[in-house]
């Protein structure tokens, strides 16, 4: 039995916005795999909740009229992994969220919840950053779309205008981002399941027609800083470069210019820096391979 002051159940997006405006103190709960755990711990004990979990219109994956991949915010991780659109255009996202916690957590956990709680270790976050996802927020004033890098403000804080009744309704991947692009994600955990990432690295590339040159490389990390982050230094090393073994090393070492992991009991800064370089290298190599390139 949870120590909950009240539960408001939203039946539609409009209803959720209305409830949010009526109960400004209330916490939104999607799948609950974070919120309920925090409530039990005492951190959110005695709080009001607005449940959006039953809003089925916020589930599912489609290609919208602008050819964006549109992922409803309540889509569970397991449904993302199994979705044919994801598998065809951005398989790496399906693979990344297939490493969240455990099968049961992947059935309850939602991509909206994963991004809205603003934690750097979220398995979806680095891939969404590396693919320049757009976050769709819906409030009393309508829809607002912002790049995911702007959505994350600081650890645990995202750009949602609660006072406008906003909730996150979708995540979009633009065509320019996913077209002809292949990527790879490595989650570093201390065991092989039921893990929170010590570091997550997501890389994707678009190769030239002859598959010899990297036209565009993008790389993002989780847990390399307080929020998920892109690594422009490494990207600029790779962009336009001819594929070679030494390029992998240069690319990987360049990440050190941008990342800034911290020391914690979960892992030391030195350790994280060390594996960050190795992971960048392995992710790039695998991405090139998936794109049809040869190293």
């Amino acid at each position, binding site marked *: 039995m*949870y120590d909950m002051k009240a539960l408001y159940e939203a039946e539609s997006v409009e209803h959720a916005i209305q409830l949010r405006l009526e109960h400004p103190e209330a916490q939104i709960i999607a799948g609950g795999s974070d919120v309920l755990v925090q409530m039990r711990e005492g951190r959110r004990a005695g709080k009001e909740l607005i449940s959006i979990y039953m809003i089925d219109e916020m589930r599912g994956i489609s290609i919208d009229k602008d050819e964006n991949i549109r992922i409803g915010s309540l889509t569970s991780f397991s449904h993302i992994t199994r979705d044919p659109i994801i598998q065809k255009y951005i398989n790496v996202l399906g693979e990344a969220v297939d490493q969240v916690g455990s099968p049961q957590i992947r059935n309850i956990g939602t991509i909206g919840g994963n991004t809205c709680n603003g934690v750097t270790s979220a398995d979806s976050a680095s891939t969404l950053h590396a693919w320049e996802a757009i976050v769709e927020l819906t409030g009393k004033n309508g829809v607002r779309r912002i790049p995911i890098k702007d959505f994350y403000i600081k650890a645990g804080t995202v750009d949602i205008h609660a006072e406008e009744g906003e909730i996150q309704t979708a995540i979009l991947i633009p065509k320019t981002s996913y077209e002809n692009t292949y990527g790879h994600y490595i989650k570093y955990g*201390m065991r092989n399941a039921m893990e929170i990432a010590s570091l997550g690295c997501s890389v994707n590339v678009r190769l030239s027609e002859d598959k010899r040159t990297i036209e565009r490389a993008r790389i993002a990390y989780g847990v390399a800083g307080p929020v998920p982050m892109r690594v422009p230094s490494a990207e600029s090393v790779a962009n336009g470069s001819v594929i070679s073994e030494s390029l992998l090393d240069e690319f990987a070492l360049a990440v050190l210019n941008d990342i800034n992991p911290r020391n914690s009991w979960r892992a030391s800064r030195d350790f994280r*820096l060390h594996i960050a370089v190795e992971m960048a290298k392995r992710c790039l190599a695998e991405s090139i391979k998936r794109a049809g390139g040869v190293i």
Partner: protein
Amino acid sequence: MNKVGQSEVRVDGYDKATGRTKYYEDRMPADALYVRIKHAEKAHAIVKSIDTEAAMKIPGVVKVLTCFDVPDIPFPTAGHPWSMDPGHQDVADRKLLNTHVRYWGDDIAVVIAENEVAANQGVRALTVEYEELPFVLDAQKAMEDGAPLLHEQYPNNILKHTSNRLGDYQNAIKEEGLIKVEGWYDTPTVQHCHIENHGCYAYEENGRIVVVASTQIPHIIRRVVGQALGRPWADIQVIKPYIGGGFGNKQDALYEPLCAWCSTQVGGRCVRIDCAREETFVSNRVRHAIRFHIISWLRKDGTIAARKVECFSNQGAYASHGHSIVAKGMGSFHQHYPCPNMECDSYTVYTNRPVAGAMRGYGMPQASFADESNIDECARAVGMEPMEFRRKNIMPQGYKDNFSGNVNYYDTYRECMKKGAEIIDYERKLKEYANDTGKIRRGIGMATFWYNTAVYPISLETSSNRMLLNLDGTVTMQCGETEIGQGADTAYAQMTAEALGLKSYKDVHVVSCQDTDITPTGLGAYASRQTYVAGFSIKQTAELLKEKILKYACEVTRQAVANMDIEDGNIIRKGDKQVLMSLKELAMTAQYNPVHSEHITAESTYTIRNNAYSFGCTFAEVEVDIEMCKTKLVRIVNVHDCGNLINPALAEAQVHGGMSMAIGYGLSEQLIFDEKTGKPLNNNLLDYKLSTFMDHPNLEAYFIENPEPTSPFGTKALGEPPACSGAPAIRNAILNATGVAINKNPINPHVLFAEFSKAGLINDPWTEKEEK
């Protein structure tokens, strides 16, 4: 067909496969009040006051009790048999709630409420005023002069120090040409992590207190609850239903005494204490972290001239099982690798950490890690292959330990090593992998372990048993040795059927639930003793029952008792195997005979004054990704000699579980503490790295079956042994793969990063730059 030695399915299999099995919480009375415990949020402090006013105002809160309210009775908690010798009794050093907080998580108050939300809110509403004291987390630091003192009567925090001397170590090391191999070996604090947390409920009935608990040791719990409450032991009735694992944590009085006392404080109403997972990690028991210092002196021919062993065992805040654990560990060294000159010392030291108690292996996983790491180094130092070095030095057949009287009747160690080596192709791989220099390297390693069954002669070994002949010719059997998941009830049914001559183990109904008002007094499940000790009382009681059956049969059949026997559930005439009557006919006749009615039953106690060695080994093959600092366990093989297998399938399953625990011990599990505050940091199943389904290769378990001559069924310990040699085998495999000898476990990525950096396998040029 023999009833023992068959892979019969579990007697509780159907109920467990259907979810019908009732654990303590499934039997909970609907009106039970919730007790929630306020745990101290200081590692060392004196509670000055607890403000309970806000908590009492919460609707649903019935009562708040604090450390200032409890009886002034220190009591012991260890699940050891009682000793009539006061000098051998367990240390009584805690009260139901404590004003002197000795670890982060100590119990200082309780809130009793009508529902769990109110109870939780009540605990959060308590305001505690502490006088903070300096704390110490490390055993050796706690021994230093001036270290914070946990218990006044134990100077330098030393709960106990014992020694073991053989020959003349100081003189022996003067021998010319000796090679010295010295190391410090560190083992971590780990937790049992049975999936059912400990919990219990208590209520008064007819002026006595009934406690239903998730415990391994109902009869011992009755004694401890009586002690803690200052009540006659017979005032307490303890009932043990099925439990969701124990592994030693529940071989201790956990919250049964507090629960019983809380009931008495609310007029005998039923109260429940259900440990949350976070509490299980911190406020139950943990495995002792033990640090070892070993110096081995070797001759060039690979023989051991002398050894020195020092063991520092981190007891945590209260004595619990105390020195018994490290004493068992230390006691293994001179037997495992007999050597004429030994100087061993062990210290059990109080620190401001969670309380260490019994855990599967009881000191041996720690000692095995240290001993088998050092032995691998010894082999390298004299240029011998590690298994060859062991073959040369390990306990020989015929060895007798003068203290326990144990005899190594067979050449068990060498037989187990031979079998394991063949299965995993050890010798070939050892050579092949030693030359591996790639970024991802394979390695193979092995380790052996020493173990002995049961607790004789250190403590009492006794087993009581009751058998009732039912009217359908089946037999109901009861004993105090408990089913905790290991399959004891099934083994008992098989042994009883065998001893009585029943048709099938299914003709034996083992009363799984122990109730101290009903069940013959026994000691519970621990020390891998169940099958061994129950075997004696089963055999003895079965003989008594058989004697009574045949005596009655003599009245009916007019055949001499000596001419009759029981086979396949029938009374037969021995000479011609003629079936005289079935047990069912006999039972009915005896019960309903108007002239001589008898319910045929038997009951007896057997005092066991034997103990049996139970040895084996592990072979592990690993793949080490050097840059990623990761070890993948590729293959693991355990070989055990636990005598005759009563149920091979259950035995194999039990070995799997122990191997799994050893894998976690070797690679990932460790409870960690904030150095600045003493607060546990990872007391949940996400941050504490118990191995998951994806962290194991297939587990391969094999046996050598040398019948144990002291056991009526030729059997001996298996419960704990599989947890002992896995971690050092993995450690030695990593050494073989990388050339890096790591003297602490778990060997997780953090440790590999540090050790590989030190060894130059990893070179991060930027690290140096950053430091500047």
